[in-house]
């Protein structure tokens, strides 16, 4: 199992992580080693075995549909790197 630099760049883009070329090479090696190790799962017979995404039997835990107080606008914006008029300020969505 060997991850190519192109595959590493693809995954980095899925996760929106900027990597330098040195990092791409380094991670390709490290991730390949880890994925090689994970290959051992392929030998396990899992026919008819349901997946366990979650260990508890709880499902659809809901609360009563009653409004209640939440964070104030000021509290919600308190850690914002940029804000204006009570909104989070973001960069332009469309890139140059």
């Amino acid at each position, binding site marked *: 199992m060997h991850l190519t630099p192109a595959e590493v760049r693809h995954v980095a883009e*899925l996760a*929106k992580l900027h990597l330098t070329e040195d990092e791409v090479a380094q991670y390709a090696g490290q991730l390949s080693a880890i994925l090689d190790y994970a290959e051992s799962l392929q030998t*396990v017979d899992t026919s008819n075995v349901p*997946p*366990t995404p979650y260990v508890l039997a709880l499902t659809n*835990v809901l609360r009563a549909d009653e409004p209640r107080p939440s964070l104030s606008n000021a509290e919600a914006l308190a850690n*914002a*790197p940029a804000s204006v008029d009570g909104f989070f300020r973001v960069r332009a969505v469309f890139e*140059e």
Partner: protein
Amino acid sequence: MPNHLHTLTIHAALDGLRAGTFTSVELTQALLDRIAAVDGDVKAYLTVTAERALEQAAQADVRRHNGDDAPLLGVPLAIKDVLSTAGVETTCGSRILKGYIPPFTATAVQRLETAGMVMLGKTNTDEFAMGSSTENSAYFTTRNPWDLTRVPGGSSGGSAAAVAADLALGALGTDTGGSVRQPAALCGVVGFKPSYGRISRYGLVAFGSSLDQVGTLTKDVRDSALLLQVLAGHDPCDSTSLPDPVPDYSATLTGDVQGLRVGIPKEYFIDGMQPEVETAVRTAIAQLESLGAEIVPISLPNADKALPVYYLVAPAEASANLARYDGVRFGYSAGADAMFENFRQTRGQGFGPEVKRRIMLGAYALSAGYYDAYYLKAQQVRTLIKQDFEQAFTQVDVIAGPVSPTTAFKIGEKSDNPLEMYLTDIFTISLNLAGMCGISVPCGFDGQNLPIGLQLIGPHLGEEVVLRTAYAYEQHTAWHQRKAGI
């Protein structure tokens, strides 16, 4: 007035506070003095909230004077920096949250506050709880109080070291793959991880949502039970929180293990374990037998698959949980001109290498074309691992084994090889995958005076049998009374 207040356990401190031997302010000051004297070397704390702690201590003294006797009234504790604390910086050991001040407090911390605790500060952690040595903290590496050239374990290394060095009477940690139990073993303290869902995760910054659980680091088992009593219980703010009633954990500390069936998995005694660790653990098991327990050999056939399952499932969940760090609503922002480029730069600069590694591993395992072979397959093997435990618990009451294959390793020794670091979790990880509970208690020392831990594993909601067994063992030994010389 005793000048050794920092060496007290939580229960001994409560005795002293109730008897009026000392006040919470005196107790808190003693710990702050100790932190000032020693934490420069141990580096357990990221943030020490000294003024706030003394105010809380003064309030606790007033409350006590007025007849209040809340379960942790006036007791100084430390909190791992992945737990949100309103008004107090919470970094998760990462640069991407430097300066982040949560607008709310985690339920676990809230419960301790309602019970009257004094918060001394926030302890160091591997970044976003990803690691086994606290070397992945973006700030600095915590040192093991038993040998300052060695790691305290991780990711709750700060909390474990703080308790081991008497820099807090107890601490909260979190455990996703062993991050409470392993540092407890390496630092010679008691580390307890309850069953998944027993303690609320609200306010615990998410890493692996199906695995994360708050845990405790304490000087003895009685203190674990005291903290668990306050922490456990249903929380409407956490939809994965169990509705089951909370028993009286302290009442379970009878010291009796007569007829208790203790399972020893053959898969947990493997090549590559440090011989002194194996000897100490086997001796501890023999000790349990001499106390009346019945030793039962068992098998957990899929035990060797736990690590590869974890290193697909946990990163997959992490890749989703860490998508929120985008420089928009909180934390570091790189200042690039366009939105997606700002995401890339913010995350590329703000996250450390281990976090990036795990995010990419997770994104890969979940991506189109690979999901079935990696993520889905891992979830299926997870079912088999869970079934192994359920099967074992029809034959035994508790399972015993090692916590870590070795004692504390040198700082830098494993940090070049991620896979080698992952292998240190080999005995702890299965519990998180299966949702079971477990404890690490001190069971010896190696030839270099480095602590060794005994792991006791219980079924889901088996906190009582684990605490009872751990307490019985502890009370017949003196390991927990040996202190690091720092």
